[in-house]
């Protein structure tokens, strides 16, 4: 159950809704959804075997809707802390445009539809993975970890790392080491990405009582953790090349962008003022880094296979 009371934001339940379609789209966190769809597309494109384009579209649609459902359920549960943070205060539930109950019903309906349609029209493994991803993000991350441990985004980051595995499973109906490697790239990318943001939004998280690492362990320790995770991330980012899953083009791009990530993490580590440019640079570049790794992997490895499937 949400920690907020319904009356706190919206008056009575009998009051007619003022929510627009745009509010419901905002509940689905479209920017997060676009990254989820993109990483799922890469998992789908690099997977061996054939998939009909309509089936591929259906799989991506279900993954997108599942991600949107997770976002809506997250906004239902977190409305109380969203209202306290500048970054999230204008979301539909804290603003009172969507009632918490409406967000809950919307998220639950989308979850059931996304999982059921993926299971009926694509395959059961992909559907099971999608169901687990939604459960992990909502129950494990949002309801449990986020408010109880500074390791919240480390463990919770797994939810964001599943989509390439779902895309792979949609094609093959199975899993192997390669999609797990894609999972690991996103998993180790998440802490430096979010902690860089948390470093310059520390006051927000502290006000909302969210135990993000900078709030609990302090600035210096967070900077060290960012550096350590980036040292692990960079070689994992390059790994598909020496392991034979990608060609030299990927290897070169992963090496250069990985080196830039390490360089920016070192800058974050060495910078001592609390709110700094280096954190913003690392946060911004980390998005480009993940996009480049997956885009080049798709071009280098999966693009040929995807075109062959579409023209077969």
């Amino acid at each position, binding site marked *: 159950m949400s920690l907020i009371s319904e009356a706190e934001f919206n008056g009575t339940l009998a009051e*007619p*809704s003022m929510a627009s379609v745009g509010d419901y789209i905002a509940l689905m966190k479209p920017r997060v959804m676009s990254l989820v769809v993109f990483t799922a597309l890469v998992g789908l494109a690099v997977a061996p075997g054939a998939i009909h384009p*309509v*089936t591929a579209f259906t799989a991506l649609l279900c993954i997108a809707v599942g991600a949107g459902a997770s976002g809506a359920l997250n906004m239902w549960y977190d409305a109380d802390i969203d209202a306290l943070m500048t970054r999230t205060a204008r979301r539909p539930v804290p603003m009172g445009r969507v009632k918490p109950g409406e967000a809950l019903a919307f998220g639950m309906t989308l979850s059931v539809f996304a999982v059921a349609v993926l299971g009926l*029209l694509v395959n059961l493994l992909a559907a099971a993975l999608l169901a687990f991803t939604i459960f992990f993000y909502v129950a494990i991350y949002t309801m449990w970890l986020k408010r109880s441990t500074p390791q919240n985004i480390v463990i919770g980051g797994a939810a964001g790392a599943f989509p390439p595995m779902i895309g792979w499973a949609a094609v093959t109906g199975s899993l192997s080491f390669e999609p797990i490697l894609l999972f690991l790239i996103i998993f180790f990318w998440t802490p430096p990405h979010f902690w860089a943001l948390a470093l310059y939004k520390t006051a927000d998280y502290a006000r909302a009582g969210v135990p993000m690492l900078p709030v609990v362990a302090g600035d210096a320790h967070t900077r060290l953790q960012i550096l350590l995770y980036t040292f692990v991330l960079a070689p994992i980012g390059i790994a598909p090349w020496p392991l034979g899953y990608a060609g030299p083009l990927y290897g070169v791009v992963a090496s250069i962008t990985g080196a830039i990530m390490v360089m920016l993490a070192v800058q974050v580590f060495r910078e001592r003022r609390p709110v700094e440019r280096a954190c913003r640079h690392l946060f911004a570049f980390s998005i480009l880094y993940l996009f480049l790794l997956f885009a080049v992997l798709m071009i280098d490895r999966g693009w040929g296979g995807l075109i062959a499937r579409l023209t077969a």
Partner: protein
Amino acid sequence: MSEQDNDKGIVLTEAQKRARRSRSIAIAVSLIVLVVLFYMMTLVKGPMILVRPL
């Protein structure tokens, strides 16, 4: 409040009517997409639509 006012129930404002209409259209579009999706997937899979191996 008089009994006559109670009989009217909730009267929506113009903004509420517009919001409801836009939500109704969005639900209709979603349902049409779902129908088309199931129709196309049935054409693509043929009799195999009933076979869903793990």
